[in-house]
């Protein structure tokens, strides 16, 4: 094995790509989750019209491939005179898509809360906001958490699609190198390893969070 290829070519290139990938994931995951919470809450409790709109939004983005959405943003919008940078197109696409999935989990979490919980807060004199903040959301978030975590893991992996719309991140850097040196197996295994580490770390952190929020017997039945 020639170590210089790894030390001088592969690892530096992949590290550079990794930084770009993280720059994609962090804003997409956090804004996507926030937007998912807003959309999910609207879909559960909103005005019927907003509810319909939210359902339509979620159905649209969950029903079509993310690549198609990215292509519409990056190649399609110029037809309307709107030009997006690859990075912007990627982040916007990721946010729109991931928030549609997150909204589904949040909505499910909210709707699974028994009516009696709300009645009891009212009987104690909670205002709507107080009851949402201290009773309903803490329960809904716990129920939605496994789904939301899973979606974050998916997003980490799908961030690789940014490469297809020419934003050169981890997968892109690797692809360039692999083609140049004709070393596909080792380069793509190395890229795979980078993603595996990211996913495993994220999984670990999210599992830890789930454990910290664990409540005996909660969510069963």
């Amino acid at each position: 094995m020639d170590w210089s290829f790894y030390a001088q070519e592969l690892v530096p290139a992949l590290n550079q790509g990794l930084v770009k990938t993280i720059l994609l994931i962090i804003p997409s995951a956090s804004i996507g989750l926030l937007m998912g919470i807003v959309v999910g809450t609207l879909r559960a409790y909103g005005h019927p019209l907003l509810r319909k709109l939210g359902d339509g939004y979620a159905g649209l983005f969950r029903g079509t491939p993310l690549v198609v959405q990215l292509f519409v943003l990056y190649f399609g919008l110029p037809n309307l005179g709107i030009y997006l940078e690859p990075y912007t197109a990627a982040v916007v696409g990721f946010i729109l898509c991931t928030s549609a999935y997150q909204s589904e989990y949040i909505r499910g979490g909210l709707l699974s809360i028994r009516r009696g919980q709300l009645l009891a807060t009212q009987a104690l004199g909670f205002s709507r906001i107080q009851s949402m903040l201290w009773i309903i959301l803490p329960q809904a978030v716990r129920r939605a958490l496994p789904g939301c975590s899973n979606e974050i893991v998916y997003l980490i992996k799908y961030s690789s699609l940014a490469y297809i719309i020419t934003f050169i991140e981890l997968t892109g850097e690797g692809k360039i190198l692999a083609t140049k040196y004709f070393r596909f197996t080792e380069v793509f295994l190395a890229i795979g390893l980078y993603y595996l580490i990211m996913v495993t770390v994220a999984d670990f952190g999210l599992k830890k969070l789930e454990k910290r929020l664990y409540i005996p017997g909660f969510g069963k039945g």
Partner: protein
Amino acid sequence: MTITENGPVLRAENISKVLGGKQILKGVSFTLKKGELKVLIGPSGGGKSTLLQCINFLIPPDEGQIYLDGEEIHIHRKRDLYAYRQKVGMIFQDFNLFDHLNALENVSIALRKVKKIARKEALERAMIELERVGIGDKANLYPAQLSGGQKQRVSIARALAMDPEVMLLDEPTSALDPELIGEVLAVIRNLAQDGMTMIMATHQIGFIRTLADNILFMQEGEIIEQGPPSELLMAGNATRVQQFCAKMNELYEEPEI
């Protein structure tokens, strides 16, 4: 209006409610004097739960007025409504403990977030209430780890912590296994003896006989009989209450309290 020692604490006048196109309550009125325990009985579907939930506006009545200490309650003023509900405790048939909070937090959450009492003080007060209902040792357990009787006692402690002037109890023992009914009734009996003002829907005839000051018999949305148990339950009196209770007695055996 001045409040004398035995003046009415709570007064409901002419409460009417239509639900699902059906007149569930047809102008119901009653008063609760300080320290009084009134019991609501009657056949299933008669409107007892609806009436109790109208009193604290969980179900807003279509018509009628409610007075607490002589003041009429207006529900369109949200602040007044929330303040009123803090003074009226409610106990549900199915407990409705907050599933994500342990017993102590269930009792203290409204103190902290609604009454804005400091955390330490709220927890101390919550502990006192849990001990009062005999489950101080269960403070750190979550609802899923408690028996039905223990859950109901936590829910009573949760209501008591708010220092209510009146308590509404909607069949607090009907979701319980027979062997657990006694422990909850004992807590309610202590409350009655300490002078808590209460209105309670229940089918526990023995309890009514010994502790109720007054019985309201409700059927098809109306109170059709009322009076002290000594009158309504006396054998030989051909009252509706008497008939109803005789039937209940055949169906259920009651634990001693």
